[in-house]
């Protein structure tokens, strides 16, 4: 069953065709990886899906509903959560408050308990009282993920979540993502190919604002065009 359908998406920045006519589908409950070289348009594409960046053309349907014109905060209410590539936590608020902001958006009754649980899920329970700006980079990445998760989304978009994580942290991150499906659909932008091949059921390859290929991990690995453009042979 299709959760999200995007058709003919376009977003140019001046003369630069960041996204240039992209069709994109997500099935409910899958882990879908979006890969491509630097500047391919991955962050721009998920920006269009989450509403952070307005589309110049094209339509987006989420769960059967046309969300193309909905502002980002309403899309969050529909169940689309986005964890930023460039860590964008609130540095002067505590770790607890960062996550509590997301938790209270879901209308949770017991805020302290639900926030504690969300922090524990990414292993940050011990850091609840710390100012988010004083956390290590890896912990800020985990906090970013915790904020996305705490929104209890139906679609969780993670933009390069493992960047800056230690090997052990990557392992537990992968276990965490696996535990989310199929209740949550996960769209993962990722440069780490081991993580992609291990987690993803389907992969979309983006290059210069267009879809270069899509398919299962093994099909993508075998694809010649992808190898030429991205995997480097």
């Amino acid at each position, binding site marked *: 069953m299709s959760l999200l359908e995007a058709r003919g998406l376009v977003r140019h920045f001046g003369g630069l065709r960041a996204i240039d006519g992209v069709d994109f589908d997500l099935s409910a409950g899958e882990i879908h990886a979006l890969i491509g070289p630097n500047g391919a348009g991955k962050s721009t594409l998920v920006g269009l899906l*989450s509403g*952070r960046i307005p589309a110049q053309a094209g339509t987006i349907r989420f769960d059967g509903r046309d969300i193309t014109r909905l*502002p*980002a*905060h*309403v899309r*969050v*209410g529909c169940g689309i959560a*986005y964890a*930023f590539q460039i860590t*964008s*936590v*609130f540095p*002067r*608020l505590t770790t607890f*408050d960062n996550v*509590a*902001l*997301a938790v*209270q*958006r879901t209308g949770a009754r017991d*805020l302290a308990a639900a926030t504690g649980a969300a922090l524990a899920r990414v292993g940050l329970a011990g850091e609840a009282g710390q100012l988010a700006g004083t956390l290590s980079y890896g912990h800020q990445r985990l906090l970013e993920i915790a*904020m996305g998760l705490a*929104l209890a989304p139906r679609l969780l978009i993670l933009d390069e979540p493992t960047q800056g994580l230690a090997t052990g942290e990557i392992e537990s991150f992968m276990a965490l993502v696996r535990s989310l499906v199929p209740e949550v659909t996960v769209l993962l932008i990722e440069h780490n190919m081991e993580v992609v091949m291990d987690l993803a059921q389907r992969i979309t390859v983006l290059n210069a604002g267009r879809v270069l290929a899509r398919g299962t991990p093994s099909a993508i690995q075998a694809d010649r065009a992808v190898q030429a453009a991205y995997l480097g042979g």
Partner: protein
Amino acid sequence: MRMLALHLAVLAGVAALQFVLPAYHHTNAARILVLATYAIGFNIAFGYTGLLSLGHALFFAGGMYATGLLVDQGGWQPWAALLAGPAAGGVLAAGVGLLALRTAGPAFMIVTLMFAQAFHLAILYWGRFTGGDEGFTLSGAARRLGPFDLADPATRYGAAFLLFAAAMLGCLALVRSRTGRVLIAVRENEERTRMLGYDPFRAKLLALVLSGLLSGAAGATYGLMFGYVGGSFAAIQYSILPLIWVLLGGAGTVLGPLLGTALLFYLIDWASSVTTASQFVVGAVLILLVLFAPRGLLGLLRERGLRSLP
């Protein structure tokens, strides 16, 4: 819990002050409490939500004129007219917010300033009703709320204290609530807050309306307490003063507005008693403040260890 106790202790101290203060300071303290309520209102918009308005005199004077005119010329009962003060402040803030909140930063400052200036000019223009620059005084009857006569110093202090206590405890409850957390998040990073599912426009409008409501309540109470409604309260000076009070005491702190208002009040009082260049002294103190405690006195305290200060 400890923080609630601290705030209650401050209130108890303020309540006890009236029994020890000599007459001159007694009147000053009542004045400070009402002006500090105005500062608390300003702080909700500026300190907690990050909205730097330069037009809050509109809400303060709007509340003052609404109450003053209704009781003086509209034949309203004083207590009913008093309630019209915060209502006027809130409605004016909603109107200004719907337009001005489409802008941000310097544009927001200028738009709010323009609204306040327009109101000030309107007061001068319709001098037949408003008394123009000279304003008008309120009769003794206009200042009696049932059995309470606001011309009586003890009653006046009590009224000022009640208003201030309600505003301060309300502010404390707000900033520790879920809503308060969203306001602070908007101040810290508006776009990030949107990506957590909150409409920043709605949050800012709410903050501005609450801010206008408190400002209007303070203006209305001030008018009845001192029996005078005048155009100077709508002038730009009364938009700048709450900014200075809040900066001095600590923007985004619950007790900062009271501290800042009291300090600046007595600083000006003292400076004008020792020199004719009192403005210069005040200016010097403000420069020192910006250089050494840009987050205000309580902001400094919060940085130096008392981190949980709301």
